[in-house]
């Protein structure tokens, strides 16, 4: 099991990602982490300005987890995501313009404006979709892994879910089946300490959710979800294990959401201090930025360049969304069933 300490050690002898990935790739990672952050800040702003309706669940503060898990995945590997799925979607390769378009309810959105934030998906890139049902995507990922095994495609399936989801029966049933059938699936519990207002201490009988892996005879790994290298290394090993036909892994990625649960959250269940502490001392993007700087992989100028590129991408994405057409109300009954050719 990785831990904060481990990373410090590894500084001395090159942490996993520096052995595994090129500097270019690592800069790309930083770029994408910014992109996730700025996408959500942009979406939040659009929401506040009334350009986006409904609600949304922001993963700000969890970017390293989404990126680290997706880094070792191939484009055709598949994921099932959650209500807090913007980061997963971008990390798996989605374009922010089509995500914004979806949030704006436009035809150019990934779901043609039918899904919105809670169902954001990018099937072409292997994202089978966010899910409005807590733990709803877990058995679906196991099904994707079953397809992979039956069709011998070599694909790996990843199911993202939160700490709150681990108390759903679907979690139990899905992990058990994945284990007895040795399926190529990775269960990623992004433990941000709370299911809505309910802390894991109040909702979950074990201290670490990874401990539950033993109940399914699969490895349970705990990583600091705010340190990209740790997450990527755990994911890499789990992917190797899955592709080798050795079965599933449960990764618990300990992280934190900076924002409230959704757009209606009085944040009564956690202290200002706690939030402040995570924001100022454990921001995954700052940590990764510093690491890349320390390793001389990027300098201020490089960072500035990325920031600016991202700003432009976001601005263009929002413009694209605004300019895109809304679906015609007469088409409301499309897609209920598959149109026969």
């Amino acid at each position, binding site marked *: 099991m990785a831990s904060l300490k481990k990373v410090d050690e590894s500084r001395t002898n090159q942490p996993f990602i520096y052995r595994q990935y090129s500097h270019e790739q690592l800069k790309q990672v930083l770029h994408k982490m910014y992109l996730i952050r700025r996408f959500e800040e942009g979406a939040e702003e659009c929401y506040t300005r009334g350009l986006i*309706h*409904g*609600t949304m669940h922001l993963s700000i503060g969890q970017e390293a987890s989404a990126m680290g898990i997706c880094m070792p995945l191939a484009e055709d590997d598949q994921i099932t995501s959650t209500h807090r799925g913007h980061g997963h979607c971008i990390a798996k390769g989605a374009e922010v313009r089509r995500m914004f378009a*979806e949030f704006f*309810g436009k035809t150019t959105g990934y*779901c043609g*404006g*039918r*899904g*919105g934030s*809670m*169902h954001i998906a990018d099937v072409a890139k292997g994202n089978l979709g966010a*899910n*409005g*049902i*807590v*733990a*709803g995507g877990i058995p679906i990922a196991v099904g994707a892994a079953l397809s992979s095994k039956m069709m011998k495609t070599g694909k790996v399936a990843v199911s993202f879910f939160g700490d*709150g*989801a681990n*108390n*759903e*029966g679907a979690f139990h049933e899905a992990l058990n089946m994945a284990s007895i059938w040795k399926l190529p699936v990775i269960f990623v519990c992004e433990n941000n300490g709370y*299911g*809505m*207002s*309910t802390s894991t201490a*109040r*909702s*979950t009988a074990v201290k670490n959710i990874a401990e539950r892996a033993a109940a399914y005879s699969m490895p349970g790994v705990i990583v600091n979800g705010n340190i990209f290298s740790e997450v990527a290394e755990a994911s890499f090993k789990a992917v190797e294990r899955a592709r080798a036909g050795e079965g599933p892994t449960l990764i618990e990625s300990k992280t934190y959401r900076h924002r409230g649960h959704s757009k*209606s*959250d*009085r944040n*009564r*269940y956690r202290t200002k201090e706690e939030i402040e502490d995570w924001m100022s001392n454990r921001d995954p993007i700052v940590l990764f930025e510093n690491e890349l700087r320390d390793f001389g992989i990027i300098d201020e100028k490089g960072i500035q360049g990325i920031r600016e590129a991202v700003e432009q991408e976001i601005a263009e994405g929002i413009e694209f969304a605004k300019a895109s057409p*809304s*679906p015609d*109300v007469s088409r*409301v*009954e499309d897609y*209920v069933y598959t149109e026969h050719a």
Partner: protein
Amino acid sequence: MDAMVRELSYAQAIQEAMAIAMEADERVFLMGEDIGVYGGAFQVTGDLVERFGTDRVIDTPISELGGAGVAVGAAVTGMRPIFEFQFSDFATLAMEQIVNQAAKMRYMLGGEVSVPLVMRFPAGSGTGAAAQHSQSLEAWLGHVPGLKVIQPATPHDAKGMLLAAIADPDPVMIFEHKLLYKMKGPVPEGHYTVPIGKADIRREGRDLTIVATSIMVHKSLEAAEALAAEGIDIEVIDLRTVRPMDKQTIIDSVKKTSRLLCVYEAVKTLGIGAEVSAAIAESDAFDFLDAPIVRLGGLETPVPYNPELEKATVPQVPGIIAAARDLARGVR
């Protein structure tokens, strides 16, 4: 009288009913997700946890099936749980306990037990929450003997019917439309009950009977007012209870008006309007019908995210006006 002019929101009315019941009977307690310090996804339980403590306002893990089962077990052993689903859509996870256990336990055990359980289901569309957070599933539970199923449409009824439900010895399922939570209306102080199983004539009329449920009662009343200007006099019945259904009130009304329009938000096919229509078509009111029985229900689609599409999937006032006018005027 002063008590009568006091206005509360639908959510406040529910909260007040729960508080009154908890004050009066220590067997009454609340279970649900984030109903404590968070106050509930729709702030219905609000600050009750501060008044009654975490032992009687219990935040459950995200475990709808197990949570519902715990409520059933507590009810059958002497407590009176009020279980809140965060969204009625999540009841899909608990149907086993609701339908196989709560609804049937008394019957299967030959009357040896009762299951005094209340479950609350925030339902309906209109919040931009898309297909998995916008369903209206009351017809499912209305199909299940052993359950009672209600849909209060006003703050007054929300409080009075909830108090009746808590006092009921059998499981009562309450569907609350999310868009009603903020609606205000007169709510008497203190304890009172509104009977389960009685429909309410919200507006008397001669030309046409509209049977509506939940939020559609208000849209139908709005349509009725608009049509009054055109000289069409509409009777609007608030069904209020899905099971057991108050057929007599509808029959009597149809015998008077000879025309029936059913308005409900759920998917049209096999929704409440199907039962209302069939109940009239097989009753002695059939011979009084001068026109087909028309149903305005939700479209045969999941609820989409886009706000314009979302509105298009459920009946709106203009559509009700048009349908009522055509029916009253005999246009086919």
